[in-house]
């Protein structure tokens, strides 16, 4: 009994915090719409990490990720006056980012660029796996190499998806968003997002069949 009432209290506290946080964000948005640069900067700080993370994982390039970050927030700044609170600001900003990422992916497909590794601004390869902490005291170099090669194979398979399939898989598998949210961001339905995810996983399985 005590546990249930404590759970209820925790939920009420969380709900209140959520409402307060949304009210605070709505206030920031209105101030930004009225021309407040400080309010817009505060909004950028709330979302910049996720935006850069998404762009970096999709493009595999720090330079391209920076460009997408720049274009997304400049677009948001220009069009924030058109935001009508019909969806969450989170969905709105992600809609801008995903469109930019899709454009980038389409351009790459047109130019047939092949980027199987993440590169930094100087063009040097970043070993993403090395940046993931390894709890084991002694790492096995052969195993590390296998993991690196596997990561490259995964990236190659992802690049064979259509831009839209890649985007849905990225948002679902790597960013952990719900299909309904993904549908809103891509201006489509949850059902379509679900079908796209299914097609993407089928294609990936076919590409990676030899590795399992």
């Amino acid at each position, binding site marked *: 009994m005590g546990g249930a009432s404590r759970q209820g209290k925790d939920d009420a506290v969380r709900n209140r915090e959520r409402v307060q946080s949304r009210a605070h964000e709505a206030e920031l948005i209105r101030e930004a*719409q009225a*021309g407040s*640069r400080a309010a817009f900067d505060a909004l*950028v700080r709330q979302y*910049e*990490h996720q935006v*850069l*993370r998404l762009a*970096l*994982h999709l493009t595999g390039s720090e330079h391209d*990720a*920076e460009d997408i*970050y*720049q*274009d997304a*927030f*400049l*677009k948001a700044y220009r*069009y924030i*006056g*058109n935001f*009508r609170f*019909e969806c969450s600001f989170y969905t709105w900003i992600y809609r801008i980012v995903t*469109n930019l990422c*899709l*454009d980038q992916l*389409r*351009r790459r497909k047109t130019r047939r660029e092949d980027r199987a590794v*993440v590169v930094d*601004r100087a063009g040097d390869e*970043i070993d*993403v*796996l090395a*940046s*993931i902490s390894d709890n084991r005291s002694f790492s096995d170099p052969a195993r590390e190499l296998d*993991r690196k090669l*596997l*990561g490259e194979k*995964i*990236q190659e398979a*992802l690049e064979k998806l*259509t*831009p*839209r399939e890649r985007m849905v*898989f990225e948002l*679902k*598998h*790597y*960013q952990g968003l719900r*299909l309904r949210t993904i549908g809103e961001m891509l201006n489509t339905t949850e059902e379509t997002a*679900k*079908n796209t*995810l*299914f097609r993407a*996983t089928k294609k*990936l*399985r076919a590409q*990676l069949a030899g*590795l*399992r």
Partner: protein
Amino acid sequence: MNCELAQEWIVTAAYGELADEQIHELERHISGCAKCQEEREQALALKALADAHPVAEPTPNLMARARLRLDEALDTLPPKHWYERLGEHILNNLASLQAAPAAALLLVIAGAGAGVVGGYEFAQGRAAHEAVAQAATSQARASSATALPELANVAGISEIVRRPDSEIVDVSYNQLVPRQIEGSLGDPAIRQLLMLASADASSPRVRNDSVSLLAAECRAGHSCQPSGIRDALMAALRYDKSAKVREKALEGLEPYVAQDVRVRDSVLEALLNDSDPAIRTEAINLLEPVEADTSVRQVLYSVSNSDDSPQIRNVSRQVLSRMPEIQ
């Protein structure tokens, strides 16, 4: 349940998106179907395999660099013009009303009702005070030693004060002084006046002349900066009541559709919202070269389904069919 549906549900379930009752149904199917059991193992294995390509967190250096670059770009952007903010405010309010037709109808009825009642009260009050006002005014005229100035070119009234216990009213006003200037199209003063005329002139002819000149400058590539002439043309395209002016503005923006995303967006907006079919058709022609932009495709797709003009629906479908497959 057949295996084809089960395989779709397996993927959905692997990502935690299947409804509880569907999970139950799926489990019943899988328990009796070896093929689908294998499918589920494969789906889970793929999930685990995909994690071999982990998501890298942006480094602090990258974050700092990106933020600095954004700050520099925002610092160089000009502040929004008053007409841009007003336009956004009006459009947002209109959109709210469109989304609430019942509220809009109530507003109209309330407004009309208030107008009828207010008008009646006003007429009653006016009749009662007319005789008194006439006498007082004649007296004021007889006693006033100040001659009324010539009231030409009044720009605006800044203050009205009624003297206590009197029918005398003090009115402060501003008066326009007509001036003329001549110079070349490259002259900054001339350009500034042309940009003002494109937004503020009450005469459609003057607005048309100014937008035509500005558009010609842009098409000729004569210093058509993003903040300045381009802004003025985009505002004219969005807000001007004259289709002729909007058409000229669109022509002036043509060279920048590919390179300037703001110009592209304003052309897309014209395609979606302009009341003149000729302008919407011209907008489609301007957008055709920009095939990599997702927004362009989305708008063309929407227009091909919902535009009032069959010709425009047809033209957009043709343009879409020439683009690589929409995915």
